[in-house]
């Protein structure tokens, strides 16, 4: 409420000091024709306790994932964030600071972000990482424009980038919005019927500026074929890989099989899903791409006494210096969420990461084993290794199945016809370190009942 304004009641005194008599004097420079008169047509102010009471009431209508047994993932999977991360992130010195334009009083966040860059760089096996972009979709989009800036001069397929045909439409839409202005053509790479990348299709991408694929791919498949990509597309085409960062505790770092740029949704490390935002996008690359990277980068330096100090560096790529020739328009990014990521990584350590990765894989494998025992459904990509999610092919529509599971108190997964029109019977189910064996049993039992009823209904 306005009584929280520190100068309420002292307006006249302050105005008088300036030789003014009313608040209107301070707005006299706004021409009459463009003034808004009277009160704003909005509700009245509330006290803190009233706001909390309303928030509780309104948000009580939400069903949290934790209130149900949930198998909904599609790239954002349930995770656990250690308590100390939440406690430390509320420290006001972090929470209420901004972009460290004055490094002498911002060493804390600068060092934390330099450490974040190191943690990510080590995780993905590439030399350079920035201190975050908005999310996994914009990091993919920024990687594509970055690849074009680096490779277009020598490319034989100018202004062209290939992306996997499996990339979900919302992510493709972000990519299209970010790339259309630069006249970039997005072509697609085909996949085999088992869900792996078609390496013959890949040869068509040779001579283009880059290719973008994901590991695991959107169907949850860990594709061994990706280790052969770089030799097929060659040095002049950027190999961009989108990763699930926790998987890299078990799965090879893409930098070690030829990736030039690694991007991804950072959420699993440090951030709750929070209805899809704020999250943070990972962006890492080899040195060849450094000067065309988007976003802020912290470098180590020295102060006038020769003491180690940190500051933002390579700013001449950025909008506040380079304006319309900047590598990206990004200014405000996701620093605080990246800091949560750094804290989570610091707590995990290398062995903790490997264990977290194993827990995710174990849940997925147990689910695969249990669900493959149901004879009335099938797992079309069962021969592959999966991380976090896989597809179930149902004897009826996935939308109906999700409806049914909802009535049984389960958030059943994701209807893949939203991504791939013709796949009305494909259900994408997600399992993470938070999945319990009993939950998998429950899903198995309900799916067996539903699918059996479907088949009997159809046959009847």
């Amino acid at each position, binding site marked *: *409420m306005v009584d929280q304004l520190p100068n*309420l009641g002292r*307006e006249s005194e*302050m105005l008088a000091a300036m030789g003014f008599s009313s608040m209107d*004097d*301070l707005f*006299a420079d706004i021409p009459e024709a*463009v003034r808004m008169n009277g*009160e*704003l047509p*909005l509700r009245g102010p509330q006290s803190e306790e009233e706001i*909390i009471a309303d*928030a509780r009431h309104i948000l*009580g*209508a*939400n069903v949290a994932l934790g209130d149900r047994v*949930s198998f909904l993932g*599609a790239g*954002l999977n349930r995770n656990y964030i250690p308590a100390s991360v939440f406690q430390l992130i509320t420290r006001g*010195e*972090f*929470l209420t*600071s*901004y972009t460290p*334009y*004055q*490094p002498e009083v911002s060493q804390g966040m600068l060092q934390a972000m*330099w*450490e974040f860059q190191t*943690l990510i760089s080590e995780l993905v096996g590439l030399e*350079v990482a920035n201190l975050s972009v908005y999310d*996994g979709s*914009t990091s993919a989009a920024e990687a594509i424009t970055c690849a074009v800036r680096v490779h277009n001069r020598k490319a034989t397929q100018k202004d062209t980038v290939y992306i996997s045909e499996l990339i979900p439409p919302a992510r493709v839409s*972000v990519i299209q919005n970010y790339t*259309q*202005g630069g006249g970039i053509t997005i072509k697609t790479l085909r996949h085999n019927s088992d869900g792996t990348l078609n390496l013959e299709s890949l040869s068509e991408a040779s001579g283009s500026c880059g290719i973008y694929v994901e590991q695991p791919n959107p169907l949850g498949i860990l594709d*061994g074929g*990706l280790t052969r990509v770089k030799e097929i597309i060659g040095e002049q085409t950027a190999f961009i890989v989108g990763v699930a960062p926790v998987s890299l*505790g078990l799965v*090879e770092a893409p930098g070690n099989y030829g990736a030039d740029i690694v991007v991804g949704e950072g959420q699993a490390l440090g951030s709750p*899903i929070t*209805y899809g935002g704020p999250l943070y996008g990972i962006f890492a690359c080899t040195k060849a791409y450094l000067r065309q990277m988007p976003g802020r980068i912290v*470098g180590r330096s*020295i*102060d006038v*006494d020769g003491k180690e*100090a940190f500051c933002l560096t*390579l700013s001449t790529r950025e909008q506040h210096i380079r304006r*319309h020739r900047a590598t990206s328009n990004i200014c405000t*990014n996701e620093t605080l*969420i990246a800091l949560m990521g750094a804290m989570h*990584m*610091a707590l995990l*350590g290398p062995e903790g990461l490997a264990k977290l990765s194993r*827990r995710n*894989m174990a849940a997925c*494998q*147990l689910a695969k084993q249990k669900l493959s025992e149901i004879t009335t459904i099938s797992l079309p990509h069962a021969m592959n290794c999966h991380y976090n999610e896989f597809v179930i092919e149902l004897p009826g529509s996935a939308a109906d199945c999700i409806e049914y599971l*909802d009535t049984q108190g389960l958030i059943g997964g994701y209807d893949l016809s939203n991504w791939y029109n013709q796949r009305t019977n494909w259900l994408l189910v997600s399992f993470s370190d938070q*999945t319990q064996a009993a939950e998998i049993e429950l899903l198995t039992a309900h799916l067996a009942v539903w699918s059996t009823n479907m088949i009997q209904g159809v046959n009847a």
Partner: protein
Amino acid sequence: MSHLFEHNGANGKGYSQPDPIFPTDNLQIPSTLVRDELPKWPRLSEPEMVRHYTWLSNRNFGIDTGFYPLGSCTMKHNPRVNEVIAQLPGIADLHPLQPEHQIQGTLAIFHEMQEMLGICAGMDDVTLQPVAGAQGEFTAIRCFQEYFRSRGETNRTKVIVPDSAHGTNPASASMAGFEIIEIPSQENGRLDLDALRAVVGDDTAAMMITNPSTLGVFEPEIAEAAEIVHAAGGQMYYDGANFNAILGRTSPGIMGFDAVHYNLHKTFSQPHGGGGPGSGPIGVKAHLAEYLPGPIVKRRPILSGDRLTSVNQEWWYHWQEPEKSIGKVQQWHGNSGAVIRSWAFYRRYGKDLKTMSEHAVLNANYLRHRILKEAEEKGVSHLFCDGAPVDVVKHEFTLSLAPMKEQLGVSAMDVAKGLLDKGYMSPTVYFPLIVPECMMVEPTETESKEVLDEFATNFVEVLQEDAEVLHAAPITTDVRRVDEVYAARNLVLSYPFDEDNS
């Protein structure tokens, strides 16, 4: 100096995890994909980790630490009730693909925010999807672009920005594929209508401008500017970075703008978090609504059969995809965590958001007055001049330290570092680019008269310092002046493990 990567204790488990729920001796990972070498991450116990980050936080300056007059960034207090609300169940643990009947609470808050933002800016429709101001700019420019394409006006390839604009404006328009025409400001920093008239034409797509300008000055001829651009068939874009100055006093809609972005992390107190997250919703006039990124929250009266989870629910909230939507700019529904915090801030003021803006403007004018008066009394007013010679400013003001640079060889950066020694965050320096040796000061409604008085006194004391003292400043901070050139010439962008071993 403590480094995270120097922690490598043998038993350094930060937290213990349950065991996998299934044996993992045969995970069937393709042999080519098995990771042999784990990342060189540190090994810390929980207390070591807590101390490391507490130590780092002690080496960081936030609004909680002290006065943070960073111009154009609106560094206002972040009420902690917002943080409490953001931690309620049903916020953090929500998935963006959950069905509508499970997220009625979030949709209700989104809807209330869409409505409120529309009213404050005089816009007809709002999307909450863009996650930062720059992304909001980009989104609106994309809407303009598709609007013109649908009308066959593909000739409109140019976006006009004044030379005082934020760097994100030209960067965002350029990313969307537009050519940038920068127009010079008048001597007094104001928009030059003749310069505008000289560049508009049938190739004009839009003009991007913030009002009050980055000089903190209200552009009195803004309606005329809008008329000129509209007459040429272009669209008007309002950069909402300076929105905190005008709520309830005027609006972009009244001024003639077609689209606007809001910085929820500025005007509506989403914490800046050391650089983010932000939130940059946009509002548009009706003719652009069908191009917005979707989906947008709409509501209708409850019908029988609606699956209500709350007893007193009056409306059914649902998603709607705008007909000719440009698609997505972020994969999900934007930074909903920031929207919820900003909702709590909105509820704190309601219609008194107008009073909030008045106090932001009162504080800026008062501080400007106090600095000028104090400088005069102490005989140092010859060392600087107003960035814009006006009677009143809005939420911020600029000072040019060019006279000081010329007379004493002391730069705006030297003065900024001197202010750090006084315990303040420095104002924005060297922006806008059109004011030489610029300092841009924005106190916001957060600060009391006492804080402003004290800052004025300290600011003038810094001006009175010996040149050598200011060249050497800061001396009281964790590190002294950092060599940014050294950082760029000797790139060390991650912890040098090899150096450490040698």
